[in-house]
């Protein structure tokens, strides 16, 4: 097996602002052609990190290698990377075509070649060719997204960075663009490094996800690993609503809702249970009595808020499952020990 260097290699990358370390010693290898997503809440340092990667800021410490070449101190305009900005940062004083051709013009590509490449890129991002001469200011939100994407691709970058480009877009268009981005990644085969605050968005598109908090990567893994084996409560809580139960250790065995958990399964101080793991009825290995305190219709699923002893729980039941409970009703719910993800902090 040939060992080609990673597309991007971060070693102890750090950015300090005064005493605050916005990015605090991040090390990771990102493989060629990977769709790598960095997820974190606002203030986690993810935007600062991507600015370091793009060369818009210089790190306080650490190194950055692109395909084995040290680019730690290479300015942005000399890096073979391109970024899609959160604000898109389109050149409003130029046409769609001029925006897309910008990087090619900087490289001194002849106008004819630029134009034909711009047309290709318009097709690639699914914009009609007559957009070429249109002013950017006359484009809708979704069209501007596509122009920004085509402009970044116009520099033929080795790596594409995305700094929350879909955060200001309405839900339906965002879903469409997520799928298009994923397809674009598959078609171009380029390395994508994507920043978002939405783990849901990351799950849809990514090969690997890094969860970032206070300048550090808390967990790096495939969407499946992040979802099924969260490293801690922070990661578990990031993916929407989840049941996190502190396990008391009375008489040496973990206890939850008057239910003795098998001691051998107790892998940590907290049990993480996804809402869809709680199933109505007695069919699962561990069952308990619960009171329905709230019922929310979510379309394809129904969400029940339950009270079992001192614990408040959330369960989600598929609409196809014919378990129609009402508020105030008592019901049996169950789960299997295998559904529990154990975390320590």
């Amino acid at each position, binding site marked *: 097996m040939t060992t080609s260097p990673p597309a991007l290699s971060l070693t102890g990358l750090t950015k300090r602002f005064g005493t605050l370390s916005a990015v605090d010693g991040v090390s990771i290898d990102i493989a060629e052609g990977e769709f790598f997503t960095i997820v974190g809440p606002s203030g986690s340092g993810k935007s600062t990190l991507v600015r370091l990667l793009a060369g818009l800021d210089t790190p306080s410490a650490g190194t950055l290698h692109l395909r084995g070449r040290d680019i730690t101190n290479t300015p942005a*305009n000399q890096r073979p990377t391109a970024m899609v900005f959160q604000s898109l*940062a389109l050149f409003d004083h130029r046409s769609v075509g001029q925006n897309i051709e*910008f990087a090619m013009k900087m490289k001194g590509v002849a106008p004819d070649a630029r134009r034909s490449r711009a047309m290709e890129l318009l097709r690639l991002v699914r914009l009609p060719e007559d957009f070429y001469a249109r002013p950017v200011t006359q484009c809708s939100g979704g069209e501007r997204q596509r122009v920004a994407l085509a402009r970044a691709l*116009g520099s033929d970058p080795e790596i594409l960075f995305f700094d929350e480009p879909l955060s200001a877009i309405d839900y339906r268009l965002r879903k469409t663009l997520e799928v298009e981005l994923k397809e674009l990644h598959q078609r171009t085969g380029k390395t994508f490094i994507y920043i978002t605050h939405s783990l849901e968005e990351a799950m849809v598109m990514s090969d690997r996800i890094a969860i970032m908090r206070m300048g550090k990567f808390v967990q790096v893994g495939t969407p499946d690993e992040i979802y099924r084996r969260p490293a801690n409560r922070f990661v578990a809580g990031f993916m929407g609503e989840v049941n996190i139960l502190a396990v008391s250790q009375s008489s040496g065995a973990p206890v939850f809702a008057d239910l003795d958990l098998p001691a051998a399964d107790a892998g940590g101080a907290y049990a993480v249970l996804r809402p869809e793991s709680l199933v109505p009825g007695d069919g699962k290995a561990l069952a308990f009595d619960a009171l329905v305190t709230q019922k929310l219709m979510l379309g394809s699923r129904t969400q029940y808020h339950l009270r079992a002893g001192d614990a408040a729980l959330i369960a989600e039941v598929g609409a196809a499952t014919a378990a129609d409970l009402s508020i105030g009703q008592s019901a049996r719910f169950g789960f299997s020990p295998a559904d529990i993800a154990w975390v320590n902090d």
Partner: protein
Amino acid sequence: MRRNPGLWYAVPLTLFMLAFFMAPMVVVGWYSLMPARSFDLTTEFSLHNYRAAFAEGYDRPLMWSLIGAALTTVIAGLLAWPTAKILHRHAGRWASLVTALIALPVFISESVRLFGLSVFLMPGGGILAGTMNALFDVQIGTFLNTRFAALVGMVYIHFPFMLFPLLLGVAMIPTDRVEAARDLGAGRWAVLREVELPLAAPGLLIGGLLTFVLCLGANAEAAILGGRAVTVITAAIEQRFNYAQDWPMGAALTVLVIAVTALLVFPVLRRIDLNRIIRR
């Protein structure tokens, strides 16, 4: 009458403009068509004064005024751009102080400041030459009473009129556009050419217009600092009206200046989108 109250609200201003703006223009235009040295407004129109203006060599002062205004605009622009960029980047207490220091002299009479500069540059006992002589035993001459001195005075007086619109223009450049351009491979000059100048263009154009038009009408710099080295068109017009008592010729020269100004100003004005500036 009730259908469009806006027209009625505009009546006072319309009357004011007609009385104090249009009427003098009409009178000046009328006089310019009268026979030389007459003080009557008759219907015997002729273009005699315009022909005479070029025959008697008034094209030279007009040329000097245009060259002076153009040079001043370019030099002030070149000086004001980096100044505006620095003041914008370091916006804060000391930047406000520097801005205030540049703005304050505008409130002092232009002649007073120019005489001050003249005293500073005077040979022998002047402030600069005297100090050099007393402290370092160095004797220096002066460029007072040259065209260069007039130009220095023009730039000195009109720099704020270029700087302040330009500060506005520089503030209209979003940082992320500059970063996007850099990210896409643009060097310093490319960023300036492709992003910064086009985005700051409204400020640059307003500053340029203001400076150019003010310079075209300026004569104190040439009179106080330039000595007799250069005659500008405003000085020639003043001379025609005052000493020569030739109102029609003075009026014809005035109309020429207004025509040249309009020819230069209107195409530029059309490119400025005031709405965009105000929204920022």
